[in-house]
């Protein structure tokens, strides 16, 4: 970029600043864009169907989004470190059943939730240990643990099923009630989201996760405790998947051995749509959560405007493709603009 010395040295500050705001805008725009799409989509649906954003409608939207948003938050933390956790669906399923089983036996709801979180964290620890100690690609390891945990779940659960009438009333109520249209579950998810977002932004270990994802080699050389941080990310992700499992139980009151099957792909979609790049080091949990809200809202929007729900899967897929394609095209544009600017600077200096 800068090839010659002193005379130009005054320019870079402003030039760099220009480039930065451009890039900054792009990233901020990323989360804003998801938000805008969401608002437009909901607004249009509301115009089409006046019942859509009723109190119950909003409540349903939020309830549907809560669980995915929680898991996506955890997944985003892992993806930021340039890893991935495919086992979240299995972890969600087994924690939901564990909590349900415990409640069935007359346990206290609070302990049941903690149990689910602890179980999730334990599986997160397993994943983190395999990935960081074995130095094995995360995709492969967590694909393996996806199978293993699902298998254990299936053996344990067998053909049993947990139903809402076997659960304490307070617990089920917690899954349905709320303050006006805002369910408690959504509030809980929001608190978790804000906490994780604040942690990532304002704590050294949180910043380390971005550093790690941005360049693992540089992180090692900078003395970042790489293994420990990767473990942290996986434990967090597992714990949130576990929490989501408990909330799933509260919300649906119905858990069997197939609960959470195939969920990993929806979660990954939400994270990517929300602008967290697979290459690590960029994006935010807020984006991932917004992505989750967007994806689940489509499920509610389609029936409301009279489109058959068979379209949901296809639309989710196309949305994901659009998200990454648009990102990429924007990035290429920005690069081209920067290049052209640099060239103009140079030719300006020639005169």
């Amino acid at each position, binding site marked *: 970029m800068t090839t010659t010395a002193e005379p130009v040295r005054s320019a870079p500050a402003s030039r760099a600043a220009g480039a930065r705001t451009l890039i900054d805008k792009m990233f901020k725009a990323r989360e804003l864009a998801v938000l805008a799409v969401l608002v437009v989509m909901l607004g249009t649906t509301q115009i089409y169907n006046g019942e859509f954003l009723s109190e119950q409608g909003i409540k349903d939207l939020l309830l549907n989004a809560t669980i995915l948003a929680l898991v996506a938050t955890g997944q985003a933390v892992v993806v930021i470190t340039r890893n991935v956790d495919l086992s979240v669906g299995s972890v969600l399923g087994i924690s939901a059943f564990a909590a349900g089983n415990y409640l069935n036996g007359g346990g206290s709801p609070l302990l049941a939730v903690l149990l689910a979180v602890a179980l999730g964290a334990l599986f997160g620890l397993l994943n983190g240990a395999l990935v960081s100690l*074995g130095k*094995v690609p995360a*995709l492969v390891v967590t694909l393996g643990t996806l199978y293993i945990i699902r298998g254990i779940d299936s053996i344990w659960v067998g053909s049993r099923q947990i139903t809402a009438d076997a659960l304490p009333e307070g617990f089920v109520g917690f899954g349905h009630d709320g303050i006006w249209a805002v369910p408690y579950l959504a509030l809980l998810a929001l608190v978790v989201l804000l906490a994780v977002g604040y942690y990532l932004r304002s704590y050294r270990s949180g910043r380390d996760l971005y550093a790690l994802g941005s360049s693992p080699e540089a992180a090692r050389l900078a003395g970042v405790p790489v293994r420990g941080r990767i473990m942290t990310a996986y434990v967090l992700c597992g714990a949130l998947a576990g929490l989501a499992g408990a909330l799933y139980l509260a919300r649906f009151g119905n858990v069997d051995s197939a609960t959470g099957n195939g969920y990993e792909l929806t979660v990954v979609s939400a994270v990517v749509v929300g602008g967290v790049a*697979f290459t690590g080091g960029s994006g935010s949990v807020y984006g991932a959560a917004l992505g989750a809200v967007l994806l689940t809202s489509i499920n509610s929007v389609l029936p409301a405007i009279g489109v058959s729900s068979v379209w949901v899967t296809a639309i*989710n897929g196309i949305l994901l*493709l659009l998200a990454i394609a648009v990102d990429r*095209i924007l990035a290429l544009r920005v690069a081209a603009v920067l290049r052209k600017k640099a060239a103009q600077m140079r030719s300006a200096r020639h005169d």
Partner: protein
Amino acid sequence: MTDTTTKATARRGLGGAVRWDTAVGALFVVLLLCSFSFVDNFGNALNVSFLIGNTLPIALIALPMTLLVVSGEVDLSVGSTAGLSGAVMGALWNEGMSIETIIPLCLLLGVVCGLINGLLVTRLGLPSLAVTIGTMAAYRGIAQIILGSDSVTDFPSQYLDFGAGRIGDTFIPYAALPFLVLLAIAVVVLHATPVGRSLFAIGASEEAARFAGIRVKRLKLSMFVTTGLLSALTGVFWALHYASARYDNATGLELSVIAAVLLGGIDFDGGKGTLGGAIAGVFLLGTLQNVMSLLNVSAQSQIVVTGVLLVVSVLAPRVGRQIAQSRARRKATAVPLRPPAATS
């Protein structure tokens, strides 16, 4: 003796081409022998033909998937492509089109699916993992839109027979014959042609391959197209083999294929592996499942076994390499003048 083994392991570690594929092949043979000897009903021709028939969908897709993974890419949409091709087959059959027209159309559809994946990856430079997670949902969704929750079963009987039957009383399903031809082609392409060499080079270092004049994008695109084509073929086979075309046919097949291919020693980072290893991995898993079913091991436990095998298969070579390295280090420290105590 220890000396030579250490050296050998160290070299394997450095070369990266851990002879894992041979180990998996050997394991497969051992499993076969044990099963023939000790498992009741395993050895009869009908069971073996079932085993092969049920493994064929994974094996078919594993062929192009191996080439794709060697070149450093992956396609998660294979199961959905198969499902879509089956769904289209069913829908067109319901429309009264002749099966001889339908099958080529389905294959063409597979080519289009692969082309979309490939263009998104090579033209836009997107990561194949993200792209194919997207198309995985999209293709499956389109299958659902096309066929809804119907299932189409009344395909012509000679086709159903081809999909499910075997040659006389032998253990060989009809469909195994075209598979063997495809296998031979794939082996030759990957291990004995410039295309194969180029795929390995691309997987190991895409930039260096480009600087060596290899047409990286074109090759990758053609691999995606081939994968789409064979996935569609698998979809057709699946519908005939199980005599049912549904939108959710072959769901989760992508994970089975990838698990098998990785088990066979194909490095997910690209540039390493052999087709022999991949196919050994596929049939090792297939046989294991068959044996476990015969032994009345529940389907759930089978899932656990698959997962454990997968984790072990990626963990073992690396752990082995680390042990070899630390052993080599110990050996080296024994030589110098100073007492080894100085190290710690």
